[in-house]
């Protein structure tokens, strides 16, 4: 099976600068344009082989889009382009202050069930976590731009922690709604 011999990185594929800041609207426009050319539906009447190549190209564009669209995936991809793998990223030391904050946030989340009216507290918590994520994204962007890769990687790890927490908060929110 031949695979797309596209040697460029995902940013180049979408004709975008290799950086963390990204124009989502432009990314979307170019994604739709590329799929408009490469999607297997455009080859529905072509030979099996051509269809297979189209599936591979279309899958490549989908993978690139999924990576660039999400800030954390994009940040990790930028690190990967510098040669820093997942393992190296997750082995970055994290400062104790951040870990203590995490524990406190988690405790708040776990005590949610005991509250009479958990909704406003939960809302507040979700806003707080989202704000923290945004802050560490900015931290990543600055560190990456300054070529300070260990700090950039540490910011990624923090975002990973916070996103996990956010998903748990959302789960609790939907559990509460189901009970209503």
């Amino acid at each position: 099976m031949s695979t797309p011999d596209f040697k460029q990185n995902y940013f180049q594929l979408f004709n975008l600068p290799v950086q963390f800041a990204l124009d989502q609207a432009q990314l979307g426009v170019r994604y739709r344009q590329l799929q408009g050319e490469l999607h297997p539906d455009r080859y529905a009447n072509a030979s099996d082989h051509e269809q297979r190549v189209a599936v591979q190209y279309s899958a490549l564009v989908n993978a690139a889009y999924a990576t660039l669209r999400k800030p954390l995936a994009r940040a990790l991809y930028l690190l990967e382009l510098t040669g820093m793998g997942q393992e190296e990223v997750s082995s970055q030391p994290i400062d104790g202050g951040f870990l203590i904050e995490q524990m406190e946030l988690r405790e708040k989340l776990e005590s949610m069930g005991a509250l009479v009216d958990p909704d406003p507290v939960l809302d507040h918590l979700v806003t707080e976590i989202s704000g923290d994520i945004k802050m560490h994204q900015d931290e990543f962007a600055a560190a990456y731009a300054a070529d300070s890769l260990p700090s950039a990687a540490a910011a990624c790890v923090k975002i990973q922690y916070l996103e996990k927490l956010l998903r748990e908060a959302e789960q609790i929110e939907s559990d509460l709604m189901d009970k209503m």
Partner: protein
Amino acid sequence: MALLQIAEPGQSPVPHQVKQAVGIDLGTTNSLVATVRGGRAAVLPDRHGAVMLPSVVNYSAPDAAVVGLEAQAMAADHPGDTLVSVKRFMGRGRNDACADAQRAHYHLAEGDQGMVRFVTSAGEISPVQASAEILHTLHERAVATMNSDIDGAVITVPAYFDEAQRQATKDAATLAGLPVLRLLNEPTAAAVAYGLDSAEEGVIAVYDLGGGTFDISILRLHRGVFEVLATGGDTALGGDDFDAAIADWVVQESGSPSLTPGQYRQLQTMVRAAKECLSTASGVAINMAEILPGSAAITLSRETFESLIQPLVKCTLRACRRCLRDAQLDAGIDNIVMVGGSTRIPLVRKAVADFFGRAPLTDIDPDQVVAIGAAIQADILVGNRPEGDLLLLDVIPLSLGLETMGGLVEKIVPRNTTIPVSRAQEFTTFKDGQTALAVHILQGERELVADSRSLARFELRGIPPMVAGAARILVTFQVDADGLLNVSAREEITGAQSSVTVKPSFGLSDDEIAGMLQASFSHAGEDKLARQLAEQRLAARQLVEGLEAALAADGDTLLDADECAALRAQKTELQTLMVSDDVDAIRKVTERLGRESEAFAARRMDKSIRQALAGVSLDALDEEVKE
């Protein structure tokens, strides 16, 4: 004097001649077929003017299945031979389907290997065969109304259908002799039906409550591109469950008499009519005396009905909530499309309107909207519309993964990933000297293998003996635009390789399908070899025509003289061979030429990428972004 061109029989004389394409909604309760004629999509009626074909197949006679209304009329007298709602059994194993079968009073064949089979007077029948009968009836209807062969069909499936259920649907089409262009998710089809008529832009939620399944999908429509953002639902929740809830209530109200299977079927038909009545009336009488002489009539008020179905409606809203979360929208929903007969129920409409905070669209008949959307997509895929008109970017509904140590599932492709998708993950051996690796492919959201749907197993052999953890085995999942999976495994050091096109554990084997094909109605009296030859010639012709067009467009710029000459020589060889009757030789050369032209096809796609991006000036991009 100009020579007249004469086309071979079955070959279109002009490349842009209109082709015949249909969309088929293979439903749990009813099935429909639609086509685009004169630029408008419409459902096709049978010769009595009915557009809905009840998805009912009767097998009382040994070799003549009866489909539709006639079969429905036989249900009371032949409950075990009359298969209704077979869609609920597609791609399911015996253990999985037992409860449903008991409720419907079917006899299932013994043995828990493979897909369920119903024991009927005509022998053991799989849900795939029964579905093929329904497709065959619709196919005949289309050929009769359009007075022409069908070039291609799009068949819809619930978005939430898993791999096994999709494969079973495709198998049914093969069995019915239908050329399938694509399996299309029902909600996507419904969005297409609305989207093209009104040229909507924005975010659309499709709430699809049919006879047996519930689907919710969130899509974004942007300049003719439908991007499915998330999808969810329940493959075993629908109008049938509303009927069952009413039937149980009626039985309880009449003092819990024991009913025969035939009487139960009668009751089901009666409560279905009562349910439909309650969409407009505030109360309805159910005359139990028709089933059990001497019984008193029972009145079902709309309030009672609503309290009976309330828990089921709530289940659908829960799925909506999860789907909304998966879609990660930054703004609200612009439109809600309602699909399926059950969305006529006032309580359902009200619950959906309350949940999304706006009134749903109901302009197109909720029973026809899926078939109409499928017909539009079929028309595009078959090549009747200009390119760039419309594009559907769909997702996989359930996560795909592999079994790892300790009975855990490692997810490789998470749910709601846009297809087509190709994803690879590396694994290693856990014992010293291990030379084979068992690959077990699973589908679902749960952590444990025991809770997930087993799709297929295969073995990678020939790994050289190494210490544990030294081998590097790359497993690649590829899901195509139909949502069907292909998995391959490769040991990176030695290159040992193995792959399967996933034939699900609950699917039919290729041999079984071949056997059924031979025995089936649609090919009785048809020469199998002639069919193979026709198919192989078609494949060869597609390749030759495609290659000719590609060489004319890019042969000079993307190939060097030698490459160009080599492809041309092989093309000529295939063209000469095509007129012969040697199926194997045609297949072999088609396969070889196809393989050798893949690199050229890839270069052309690279060029497309460059052109797609260079073709738009930055100003135009900025303009579109600003809108």
